[in-house]
């Protein structure tokens, strides 16, 4: 596994196999230069990150409802650990609960993206996020900008 990393190291933590596959396929199709890693729960995420042999991801897409260690717990640990707190964490979840959104905002997540309902929306959203410098774009830290709103696809 000694391949040179592509431009942007990105990691997705999601317990749902379909969602992992969809994410990975969407990334391939939008042809962005990223190196995607996939893990299936919070424990595996932390183990991966603590492995010194890896290249630290710049963006982590974090699902909330995962077994063993869930998204909230991971987020809290990431943002309170010196080595990880500067990683751009995007909460990637189906939740519609304002309570959840408030909580991850409080825990200092960098962005909230609701899992799209369709594959084309997913491609569109990922394209818009992964082709910009997220750290520069989403720095206001206001609640308004916290929930990502994709620009609709032009038909």
């Amino acid at each position, binding site marked *: 596994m000694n391949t040179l990393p592509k431009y942007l190291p990105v990691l997705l933590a999601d317990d*749902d196999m379909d969602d992992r596959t969809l994410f990975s396929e969407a990334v391939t199709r939008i042809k962005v230069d990223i190196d995607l890693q996939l893990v299936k729960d919070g424990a595996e995420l932390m183990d991966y990150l603590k492995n010194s042999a890896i290249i630290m991801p710049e963006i982590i897409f974090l699902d909330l409802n995962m077994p063993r260690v869930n998204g909230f717990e991971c987020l809290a640990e990431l943002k309170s650990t010196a080595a990880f707190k500067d990683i751009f964490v995007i909460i990637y979840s*189906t939740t*519609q609960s304002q309570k959840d959104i408030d909580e991850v905002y409080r825990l200092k997540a960098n962005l909230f993206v609701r899992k799209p*309902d*369709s*594959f084309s929306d997913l491609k569109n959203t990922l394209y818009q996020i992964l082709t910009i410098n997220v750290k520069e774009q989403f720095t206001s830290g206001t609640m308004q900008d916290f929930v990502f709103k994709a620009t609709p696809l032009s038909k």
Partner: protein
Amino acid sequence: MAKILIVDDREDNLMSISSLLEPSGYKLVKANSGREALKILLSEYDFALILMDVQMPNLSGFETASLIYEREKLRHIPIIFITAHSQDEENTFIGYKTGAVDYIYKPINPELLRAKVSVFVELYSKTHQLIAQEQKLIAINKNLENEVKERKLSEEKVKLLNLQLLQNIDKLEAANKDLDRFAFMASHDLQEPLRKINVFSERLDSEYGNLLDTEGKRYINRIQNATSRLQALIKDILTFSKISTDKKDFVKSDLSQLMKEVVSEMESEIQEKNAQIIIEELPSLAINPNLMRPLFFNLLSNSLKYSKKDVPPVVRIYSEPEMISEKLNGVESKRKYCRIFVSDNGIGFEQVFSEQIFDMFKRLHNHTEYEGTGIGLALCKKIVEVHNGYISAKSSLGEGATFIVSLPMIEQGEPSEPVRA
């Protein structure tokens, strides 16, 4: 009438005493010996008085009297001895009984006899009256006791029923909360697989659609249609189950302002339908704005949705105060309500359906004629009930519809205690 027993061995004495007493109306029983008197007294003892001759052969008057008084049942009967004056015999007898014994001396003075007899007869009747009264009083007392007992039992029963009622209300509220929670969880968990169906059928269509003939493509289309209906339904159920009954969320709000906000949210649809929304002044009430907004939204949205094809919708929103008399805990009172009318010129519906349209999932049209999940009005009803209000509809087919929301007017920020319904 009082009964008197006359005991004398001389027939002529019996006759003369009887004739003296008969006019007074007493019932007279005659015995011409002590033995005969005792025999009579075996079966009859309701005599008010015994007139006893002292000088009798075989059993003397005194001997007869002693024998009579040996019997419990006869001890109450007073005896007047008819005697020739004799001091010693009197002294012997006084030892036996005090009070209910008297003497009449021969020759009998008729007036004296009548007087003495009447005294004892009166005593007898008075005593019997007293006894009768006493019985009556005892009976009445017993009745009262029973009544009090019964009343206490009823009170206990009412208390018990009340307690059960309160417990049942608590159970119902808990069950309702459980149902809401269940609906929420079910809807939430149902959304996940639904999303997958959506995503993959869309991918099937876009990535492999070219491999399918028109029929195949149509199947995918049908899957997607059904899926979006299901999603809308689940979303509505979720909204319904999340309705907060928390009184803390009530705040005094300007309803005109709220309505205008809702209208501006619907701007694009209003323009599309070339609709006219007229909002007359609405009062400020203590309400939960997060619930009132979807309520107004639903009603307005319905007015636009069920408009006539070629007639631009005109929706008029206005309010009126109203006094409604209610009975709470047996007390009748009048409460002030604000009635908010949302009136349109759409297709209307038959008034006979005016109540069922508020039922969950109840629709008057097919989903292909007008889209919708059938929850909108049920949601409105639930929201209105959280506010202790009422909602109703008035309409006739082809003549538009008016929806009336009645909300209690409480000026201060606190809503009244929820009516346990």
